[in-house]
């Protein structure tokens, strides 16, 4: 041992507590960020992006405001769970390592230490915010990015992380056992699952009061129609985090007026923000009704060649994708047919979509469809081909291709329950499969999951068409034949093949395919188109 040579620093007689708390928070925040669980959570959070980048499976048509919600759901379990456990372990560190005998004799009072532990989660939340922003920002740079970036939605994930970190601190103050935090996280996951089910069933209360608002529709909405009180929900989360933090400070020994004032303020703020989420926006409701029945007023139309594409303003980046499919379906059609001017109009069921296990009936759907078609015609796009707010997965592309093919063959668009049989059905399947690589993939997916008939249904509107397996089989088999040869054959015999009376056998004979066994009459579905 050596004799001290450096000047001694005496413990200060009095320093602002805040400075000591911030110094401790700085050290704890570094330990928070360096904790193996934190690093694992961050890696797990970014692993889907890395996987997408590595495999080239990045969603090329993301809806930004929905992607932000998807990140919240991942974030709450991975990043939020990590924050809860790490914050809890950090507070319990002195107890777990038996240093509390020493620490209990040191100067900084317990409430200030608790304050430091609460503040220590801020840099982690900042990292989370940066990751979320980077992810959504990168998606926004894609040419096919639709939707809008909602800053409140982006801030929700770091807010949830802060809330759960505060819960971790509070739990450590209540129970000096490291097992409680993982158990709490498990309970939280169960509650989130219940909320997910509740959201799917239309239970607004559970949906809004849990940290992450799960979406209650299985498809995207235009940004201006999204019924998510994101800013009020963010305020509610901030209030909850403040409330938990105040509880942790109270548990650490803070008493008196400041505590009462903070508690009152946090409770009032949380209650107000929580209640404000339930405020219904009549203007939004009216806009949803309009967008569902007559979207022309809120859509922008772009003419490309002899095709008019009308989309909700934040979905116009998808038009090139739609155009590729239209071009692919039209390519093998005879020139007279291919030259027919077409219009494509985006369609969304923004109001009255049956959630919570409810179902719509055919009469309602037919009526709604008729009204929509009339509105589209009035807007200068008669017999518009509907396209949904889902794009980029093969199925949606195949479904859209089927709608285009149906329009070319019959002159009309989707109906609620249309069945196309015979040579028309086989030709429709072939047209879909050969249009683009995306439609080919989607067709294979649909074929793998269909039974009895190949069903092209738009989950957004329930509109669609189905082709019985017997007929679809010939169309699928024709996709295995040389494309140029098939295209020439079908173009030359277009009128015959699109005649409802032409049987599939004729299609097979033309394509040089073996005849498929005929289904029994009772197995054969009614052909409605």
């Amino acid at each position, binding site marked *: *041992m050596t004799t*001290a040579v450096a000047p*001694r620093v005496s413990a*200060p007689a009095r320093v602002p507590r805040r400075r000591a708390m911030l110094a401790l928070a700085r*050290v704890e925040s570094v330990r928070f960020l360096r904790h193996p669980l934190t690093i694992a959570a961050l890696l797990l959070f970014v692993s889907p992006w890395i996987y997408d980048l590595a495999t080239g499976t990045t969603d090329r048509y993301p809806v930004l405001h929905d992607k932000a919600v998807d990140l919240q759901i991942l974030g709450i379990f991975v990043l939020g769970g990590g924050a809860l456990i790490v914050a809890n372990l950090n507070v319990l*560190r002195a107890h777990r390592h038996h240093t509390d005998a*020493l620490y209990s004799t*040191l*100067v900084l009072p317990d409430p200030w230490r608790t304050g430091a532990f609460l503040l220590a989660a801020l840099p982690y939340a900042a990292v989370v915010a940066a990751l979320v922003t980077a992810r959504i920002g990168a998606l926004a740079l894609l040419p096919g990015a639709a939707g809008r970036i909602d800053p409140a939605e982006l801030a929700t994930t770091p807010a949830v992380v802060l809330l759960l970190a505060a819960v971790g601190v509070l739990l450590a103050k209540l129970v000096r056992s490291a097992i409680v935090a993982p158990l709490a996280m498990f309970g939280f996951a169960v509650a989130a699952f219940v909320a997910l089910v509740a959201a799917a069933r239309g239970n607004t209360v559970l949906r809004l009061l849990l940290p992450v608002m799960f979406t209650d529709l299985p498809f995207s909405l235009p940004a201006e129609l999204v019924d998510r009180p994101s800013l009020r929900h963010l305020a509610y989360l901030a209030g909850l985090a403040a409330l938990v933090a105040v509880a942790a400070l109270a548990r650490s020994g803070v008493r008196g007026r400041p505590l009462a004032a903070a508690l009152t303020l946090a409770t009032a703020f949380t209650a107000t923000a929580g209640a404000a989420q339930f405020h219904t926006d009549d203007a939004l409701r009216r806009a949803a009704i309009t967008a569902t029945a007559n979207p022309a007023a809120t859509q922008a139309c772009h003419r490309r060649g002899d095709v008019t594409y009308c989309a909700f303003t934040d979905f116009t980046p998808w038009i090139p994708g739609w155009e590729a499919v239209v071009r692919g379906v039209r390519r093998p059609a005879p020139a007279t047919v291919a030259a027919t001017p077409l219009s494509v109009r985006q369609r969304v069921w923004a109001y009255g979509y049956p959630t919570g296990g409810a179902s719509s009936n055919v009469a309602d759907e037919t009526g709604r469809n008729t009204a929509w078609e009339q509105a589209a015609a009035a807007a200068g796009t008669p017999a518009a081909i509907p396209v949904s707010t889902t794009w980029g997965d093969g199925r949606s592309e195949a479904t859209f291709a089927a709608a285009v093919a149906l329009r070319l063959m019959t002159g009309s668009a989707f109906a609620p329950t249309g069945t196309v049989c015979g040579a028309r059905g086989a030709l429709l399947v072939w047209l879909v499969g050969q249009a683009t690589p995306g439609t080919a993939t989607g067709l294979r997916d649909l074929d793998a999951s269909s039974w009895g008939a190949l069903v092209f249904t738009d989950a957004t509107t329930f509109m669609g068409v189905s082709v019985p397996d017997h007929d679809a089989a010939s169309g699928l088999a024709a996709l295995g034949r040389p494309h140029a040869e098939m295209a020439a054959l079908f173009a030359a015999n277009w009128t015959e093949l699109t005649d409802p009376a032409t049987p599939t056998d004729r299609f097979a004979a033309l394509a040089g395919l073996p005849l498929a066994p005929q289904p029994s009459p009772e197995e054969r579905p009614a052909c409605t188109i």
Partner: protein
Amino acid sequence: MSIDAAAAATTPPGTTAAVQADGLTLRYGRKAALDGVTLTLGPGVTGLLGPNGAGKTTLLRILATALAPDTGSLRVLGHDPLTGPGRLAVRRRLGYLPQDPGFHPGFTAFEFVDYVAILKELTHRGDRHAEVRRVLSTVGLDDQRRTRIRALSGGMRQRVALAAALVGDPDLLILDEPTVGLDPQQRMRFRELFADLGEDRAVLLSTHQTEDVMSLCRQVVVIDQGTVRFTGTPAALAALADGRVWTSATREPRALASWRTGTGLHRHVGDPPPGAELLPPTIEDGYLMLVDLHGAS
């Protein structure tokens, strides 16, 4: 030397005693861990001796502000630690090395002591780091600053704990069995360090090592069954066994303590038989006389 006289002798006239305790009592259920402890500590190293369970650690924890007594009055460094402001004032000038100090195995020695320094409210980063380097240097851990505690030996860990106690240059150091588990060389180094530290502050050293007390301490306090049995100089403690230590070739069953030494002769503490060959007493003999006598009573 009487107990009161010894206490008064340790506090130079005109200076404030580091510790003034009067009638401290603390009970754990029906058991009295401390039973009316009264003592005064001045500057220099004071040894605290006592058998296991005597109440030493409880007394040290009270002095270190980790526990509050049930009754009695206490002033530490001129402040009343039983009040909030007094407790904080004491903590600012106190260094405490608890018995079995815990460590964060993932921290480096520097990080651990730095953490303690923050909790001592050394907020200026540059000054704090300089202080951490100073105390680590003082305990001879310059080269192990960046080593994680899990990789340090037991002796080195004990030095880390001592460094943590030294942060902020405290006026009162309370060390609870700091040399347990150390090899003789390390104990000697600690002894040197405690002697240096005791030159300009009060050091209260709880130990079972009577040699440490003899070689280091200006004052010694013996506590047993929650009560102070002796306060005085180490020589005075040894003197309690004057004329009551003798040697013989055979074991003496009537002695308070009797054992065969390395020379083959037996050493006895107690009432010697007539004509016994008396030996000069050690502090350990005095301590044995004191504790055993009270235990016998």
